[in-house]
């Protein structure tokens, strides 16, 4: 359930946001949206993949956090076990929303039904004078970065599609207990086609700044191995 409302320094003056990370607090997700402007950090920890939307007509970029629905292998003792958290995770339970129905202006919204929202526990959003705390300021900056990246992603993906650089990915992951997890429905960069890209395509990619994120997606694939390690560690703990 969600209940998105525009954040108000009057109505939400005293709320606090729990910054622990756990399934109970809504962090049990197997993937999250990611954007090219954070790939440099994301590719250190997470596989970056393409995923078709529900209508199967558009790709979106995600960071993979687990292998099955609701599984987030980065949750450990109510903390996030990696130095960098994707922006889409960091900003929870906040999001960007339109200031009013017809407005093109955007403002900070909050999901009031999120278990992260509390009156006693967590970090304040506004101080006693109604001014944003440093925490809210950092959320605003992250929402801004996420929003910018999200705006630019469709053009990037269209360009990749134009040169047919996205290919379907099927992986079978065998765990130490012998069980096999099949990773389906994801796509990645077709490395062969990228290598054979003609000078025209290379120029277009390069001029738009698309080469770097593309190679980062490729590099991020090695994180699947460490994700398997995390899963194996869980399996062996029973």
């Amino acid at each position: 359930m969600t209940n998105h409302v525009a954040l108000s320094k009057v109505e939400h003056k005293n709320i606090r946001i729990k910054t622990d990370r756990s399934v109970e607090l809504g962090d049990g997700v197997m993937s999250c949206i990611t954007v090219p402007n954070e790939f440099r950090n994301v590719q250190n920890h997470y596989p970056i993949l393409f995923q078709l939307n529900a209508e199967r007509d558009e790709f979106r970029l995600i960071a993979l956090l687990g292998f099955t629905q609701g599984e987030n292998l980065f949750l450990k003792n109510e903390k996030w076990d990696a130095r960098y958290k994707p922006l889409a995770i960091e900003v929870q339970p906040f999001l960007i929303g339109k200031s009013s129905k017809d407005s093109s202006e955007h403002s900070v919204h909050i999901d009031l039904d999120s278990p992260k929202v509390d009156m006693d526990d967590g970090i304040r959003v506004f101080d006693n004078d109604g001014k944003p705390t440093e925490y809210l300021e950092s959320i605003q900056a992250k929402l801004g970065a996420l929003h910018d990246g999200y705006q630019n992603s469709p053009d990037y993906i269209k360009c990749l599609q134009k040169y047919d650089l996205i290919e379907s990915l099927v992986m079978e992951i065998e765990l130490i207990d012998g069980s096999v997890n099949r990773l389906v429905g994801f796509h990645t960069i077709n490395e062969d086609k990228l290598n054979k890209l003609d000078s025209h395509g290379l120029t277009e990619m390069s001029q738009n700044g698309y080469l770097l994120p593309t190679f980062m997606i490729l590099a991020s694939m090695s994180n699947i191995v460490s994700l398997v390690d995390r899963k194996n560690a869980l399996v062996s703990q029973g």
Partner: protein
Amino acid sequence: MSQAIKNVVIVGGGTAGWLTASLLAARHDTSIQVTIIESPEVSSVGVGEGTWPTMRKTLKLIGLSEKEFLTTCDASFKQGSRFDGWVTGDSDDSYQHPFASLINGASHDIYNVWKEFSSDRTFADTVCAQTEVCAQGLAPKQKNAPEYAAALNYAYHLDAVKLAKLLTSHATTKLGVRHISDHVMQVIGEKDEDISALRTREHGNIQGDLFIDCTGLNSLLLGKHYEIGFVDKSDVLFNDTALTVQVPYADDTVPIASETISTAHDNGWIWDIALPTRRGIGCVYSSRHCSDEKARSALETYLKASGSLLELDDLSVRKISFPSGYREKFWHRNCIAIGLSAGFLEPLEASALVLVELSAELLVENFPSDRSVMDILAKRFNESFIYRWERIIDFLKLHYVLSKRPQAYWQDHRSDMSIPERLQDLLALWKQQPPSRDDFLALDEVFPAASYLYVLYGMGFETRQKNSLKFLNKDEVIKQLQMVQQKVRTLTAVMPSNRALLTNLKKQYNAEA
């Protein structure tokens, strides 16, 4: 006189007795046997009490879990004291004495930077972030912080009876302290000799090499047996009576204050100590200046103003009489008094438990392993603690001397005759220069210069400097003051309310148990 000290016998099972027993047993190996004789007939005085930050170190040393301590002793976090109505008695008359240490820098620099750049803020708000955190009812740490670790320096408000109980079980089961529940009938030994044993009603004679008198105001060994005189200080600190009550919260959302609130009235003051489940409130007054009825009505007025749903008639009021002063010496022959048996001062700056800790620490860390060195250690102990008692008296008196309240009680407090000479000298000096480390010569002063700065400038004391002294490092001080304000911003956003943290830690403890 060569004789190994192996058997330590403590008389009295209050917080003083059990803290001393626990520290002795925790810091020494099993070649020393600690025995505590606790009379089943004597009941402890149980009011809400404040400690100093030293209590964190003490409890950790004894080996107690902080969560267990907080939960079982009904304890909460204390970050200092707030003094309401001490200067004029007006509604906006309030200042804070936080536990935060000062920013680094020479007093002269800090004082002048405050006056020059930050005079719209109080001195305390300028030099530390803790006062604002307290004002907002926030805790000194977050829920995942390690036990006893502090983001902001803190002590406790606690139920002393429950602390004694927790220490009893901990000291007897974990630390090997022998517990004898019996009444001491007689002290064996002449007045000019060492004590050799204590005759009890049911356990015969309990022999010992060293005896610790923790019998409270009774002072059974040091006062009654050895007849060590009492240095009466009631001519400096007039209060001798308190009316105490335990007041429930209106409901479980009422904030739990993270500082002791001390509110002045016409003939004394009222303490308000917030525990997780109730407030402990006491009206302290001078019976020479004030009748019991008047004190009762001051307490009544305070209860109403502080949001109590119950009236005084609904509560059980206890009257306590107490002396002001200390024994001429605390360690005589093979007997040491620790706790109220050594002396008593009104609880204005929560000095009772800290004196127990300091006494026990000095004894424990410099334990006389042989009778031959005992007199040397005793002499040092006595010198050290006479100095400490005197400095505490000076500091308590300071709170009264700076008042402008017009009532006879307050005027008497300001008469030169009642002010110790050392304090008079210091006040004369501080009119010219702010308090600094040079005014306090002991290595570990009970109240450091910072405490004097908080109280003096909290109460509006004016230092008029002769400005020939230049700044030592002005830019650095300014930078630190800016960092204080940055810290205020960060801390007030991330710190949970005092109540929320206590509730959370209790939940954690119950889940672990």
